[in-house]
C-alpha cells in the first residue's frame, strides 16, 4: 500500500511537470510559433495600452529575448524558487511559488490566488457535500425501485438539472431567494468570521451548483447500484439472512460507490480550479472570477496563474482518487 502511494505520488509530480510544460508552451511558445514577435508577446503581459519602455522591461523580465529553454527554466525556477522582476528602478521579489507577476496591477499572482482560494473552496466543498449526499441517496432509492414513480420523477428532475445552465438556475435562485424573498444574504463572509452568515450567503450558490451535479451523480449511482444489486455477492449476502438494509448499504452501496469516488474526485478538482460561471453569477470573488478578470483585462499572468493552480488541483485530486480507490478496493492494491 505504501509503495503504491509512493508510486502514485511520483507519477503525480511527473504529471505536474508535464502540465507546467504544456502551460508554458501555450503561453510562451505557441504565440511565437504563430508569428508574434517578442515585443507583441510582451505587450500582452502588460495589459492594455502599454508604453515602449514597459514592453522592453517586461520582455526582459520574462526573458522573452532569450532562447526557449532558458525561458522555461526561468518559468520553473520561478515556481520552485521565486523570481525577481525589475520594474523601473525598483526590484520586486515574487515569493515562492511564483505563479507570475501582474505587471498591470503590480502585484504577484500567487497572493491574489491564495486570498481568493477560501471562497472557491467554500463554494466547492459545500456544493460537493450537498450533491454527493442528495445524488447518491436519490440514485440508491431509484435503483431499488426502478421504474417506480419516485424513480421516474427524480430521473426526470435529474435530466432537467443537467440540462439547465447555471446562469439560469443561479439567477433564478438569486431572484427568488435573495431579492424576492430575502432569505439569504448577498455578501460573502469568511467562515472564520461568521459561520452562520457564511453558510447563509453561500447556500443559494451551493444549491444551484449541486442541482447541476447531483443530477449526474443520481444517474451514476442509479446505474451503478442497479448493476451491483444484480451481482452474485448480493445474492450471497441475502442468502446469509442479512436484513435488506445491510445488504443494500454494506454490500451494494460499498461496491457501487467506488466508481463514483473517481468521478467525484475529478469533479471536485476541476471545481477548485474555479467555478467560473457560478462565481460570476453569485458575485463571489473566487478563483474563477479572478480568471475572468484576467481575461477581460487582457492580463496574461493572471490567466497563467489560474491555469497552473487548476492543473495542480486536478492532478492532486487524481492522486487522492487513486489512493482512495486502493483503500476501497483491495484488488487494486495488488497491481
Amino acid at each position: 500500500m505504501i509503495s503504491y502511494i509512493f508510486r502514485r505520488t511520483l507519477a503525480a509530480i511527473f504529471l505536474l511537470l508535464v502540465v507546467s510544460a504544456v502551460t508554458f508552451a501555450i503561453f510562451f511558445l505557441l504565440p511565437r510559433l504563430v508569428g508574434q514577435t517578442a515585443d507583441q508577446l510582451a505587450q500582452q503581459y502588460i495589459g492594455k495600452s502599454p508604453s515602449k519602455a514597459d514592453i522592453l522591461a517586461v520582455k526582459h523580465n520574462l526573458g522573452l529575448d532569450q532562447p526557449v529553454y532558458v525561458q522555461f527554466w526561468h518559468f520553473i525556477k520561478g515556481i520552485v524558487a521565486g523570481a525577481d522582476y525589475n520594474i523601473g528602478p525598483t526590484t520586486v521579489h515574487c515569493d515562492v511559488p511564483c505563479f507570475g507577476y501582474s505587471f498591470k496591477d503590480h502585484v504577484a499572482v500567487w497572493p491574489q490566488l491564495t486570498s481568493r482560494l477560501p471562497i472557491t473552496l467554500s463554494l466547492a466543498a459545500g456544493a460537493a457535500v450537498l450533491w454527493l449526499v442528495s445524488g447518491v441517496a436519490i440514485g440508491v432509492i431509484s435503483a431499488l425501485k426502478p421504474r417506480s414513480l419516485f424513480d421516474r420523477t427524480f430521473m426526470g428532475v435529474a435530466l432537467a438539472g443537467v440540462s439547465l445552465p447555471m446562469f439560469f438556475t443561479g439567477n433564478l435562485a438569486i431572484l427568488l431567494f435573495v431579492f424576492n424573498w430575502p432569505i439569504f444574504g448577498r455578501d460573502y463572509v469568511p467562515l472564520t468570521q461568521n459561520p452562520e452568515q457564511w453558510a447563509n450567503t453561500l447556500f443559494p450558490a451551493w444549491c444551484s451548483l449541486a442541482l447541476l451535479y447531483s443530477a449526474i451523480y443520481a444517474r451514476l449511482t442509479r446505474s451503478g447500484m442497479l448493476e451491483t444489486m444484480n451481482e452474485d455477492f448480493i445474492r450471497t449476502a441475502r442468502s446469509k439472512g442479512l436484513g435488506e438494509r445491510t445488504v443494500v448499504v454494506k454490500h451494494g452501496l460499498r461496491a457501487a460507490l467506488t466508481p463514483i469516488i473517481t468521478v467525484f474526485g475529478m469533479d471536485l478538482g476541476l471545481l477548485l480550479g474555479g467555478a467560473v460561471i457560478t462565481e460570476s453569477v453569485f458575485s463571489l470573488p473566487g478563483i474563477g472570477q479572478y480568471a475572468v478578470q484576467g481575461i477581460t483585462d487582457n492580463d496574461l499572468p493572471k490567466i497563467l496563474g489560474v491555469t497552473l493552480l487548476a492543473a495542480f488541483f486536478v492532478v492532486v485530486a487524481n492522486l487522492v482518487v487513486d489512493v482512495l480507490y486502493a483503500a476501497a478496493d483491495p484488488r487494486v492494491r495488488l497491481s
Partner: protein
Amino acid sequence: MSDTKKTAEPGEAVIPRQAAAEGDAAERDVLLRVEGLTKHFPIKKGILQRQVGAVKAVDGIDFEVRKGETLGVVGESGCGKSTMGRVITRLQDPTGGSITFEGQDITRLRTGQMRPLRRDIQMIFQDPYGSLNPRHTIGSIVSAPFRLQGVEPEGGVKKEVQRLLELVGLSPEHFNRYPHEFSGGQRQRIGIARALALKPKLVVADEPVSALDVSIQAQVVNLLDDLQQELGLTYVIIAHDLSVVRHVSDRIAVMYLGKIVELADREALYKAPMHPYTKALMSAVPIPDPKRRGQKSERILLRGDVPSPISPPTGCRFHTRCWKATEICKTTEPQLVELIPGQRVACHHPENFADQAPQDTVLLSAAKEAIELVPDAVLEESAEQTATAAPEEPEPAATTEPAPEAKTETPAKTEAETPAKTEAETPAETETPATAEANSPSPEAASVEAPAPGEEPPAK
C-alpha cells in the same frame, strides 16, 4: 480446398513449396510441429516497472499435429493450454521455441506475413456470446474472412455464406439476423461457420463446447466430427473436460503447469495412463453410474492446488502433489520420452510401466502425505504393474527392496490379480505404432501451397 486458393488476389504471392516435399513420408504427414515452445508473461513491479519475474504459462513443449487427426489438449485451469492455443495460431507471440506449419517456420512471421496463413489456421473460441459482434449480422460475421482476405468465392460471397450456414446446421435464411436472436449452441455453430469459411487446414478450438448445455454440447461435438470427415480438417481441441476430449481426439496431450506431461494415443492414454497426474485427473472425473459410487477406491484425490506458474516447482512440476515423488523428482526434470510407441511420458516413476529411476525409492514427505489420499487398490495395482515390467530394467533389484517409508505400496503383494493389464506394458520395441490410422494421407498433401516467407502482401 484449392478453389479458394485459385481465386486469391493477384497481389498475394502463392508459390508452391517444394523443399519440404522431399522430406520423408512421416514428416510430410505432419501439419504443425511445435518445438520447445515457451510463452512467458512478464511481471513488472516497483516504481520503474522492472521485470521481476514471469508467468511461465507455456514452458517448453514439443508436439506435432498430423494431417487429418484430432489432437486433444487437456489440463486444469492455469496449465497453459489456452495460451498454447493462442500461440500456435500466432494470436500471441511465442517467447521461445519454434512453430512449423507445413514445413514453414512461422514462429517469427510478422502480422502481414501471417495474413496468408490465417486462411489455413483458424480458431474457434469458447464463449459463443463474446466472440460474435452483436452489431453485425450473421451474414457479415461469416463473410468477414472473405473480406479480410480479399477472397471472392465461387458463386459470390452471399451464396457461399449460406452454404456454410447450411453446412453447420443453420438455415440460410439466418443470413440477415443478429447474434442475439440465437441460442448458445447456434452461436457456436456460427463461430464454426466463420472459422471454416476459408477452408482452413488446421482448426484450433479452445473449449468449443464447455459453455453449452449437455444436449447441445453433443450436437456441436457431432458437427465437428462430421465436418472433419467431410472437409478433411485437422483439429487441435483444447478442453478441460476429459470425457469430451477422449470422445473427439485421436491423440491427447495432458498439460500440467506449462508442460506436456503425457502425450499418447487416446486408447493407450485412457487404458493405461503412465503419468501419475494423468491417472489422478482421470480418476477424478465423475462417472454417471451410481453403482460405482461405492467403489470410491478408484479415486485419487490430489492435495491442495496447482502451484503458481510464476515459480513452478523444481524438477518434476508435479512432485509437490504426487504420491510417488522421490528425491530425483525434486532435483531432475523428467524429459518427455516415448516409453512405448505412441505414448510419451515425462515421469521418473511412471504408472503401468517400469520405473525409470528404480534406485530412488525414498518418498518425499509431501508424497507421504499425498499417498494417504490414494486408495489402496490403486497402489497395489500400480506396484504390481511396475513389478511385472521391472525385469526388463537393468536394476530390478531396487524395486523389490522396500524403503521403510514406502511400506504401504511395496510390490510384495505380487500374487497377480489382474493379468489383463499386461498388454499395456509391452516393452517399447516390440509393438508397431498404434497411430497408423491417424496418419491417413490427406488429398491436399501433394499440392501444398505456402506463401514465400519474405514476401508481404500489400497493405489493405
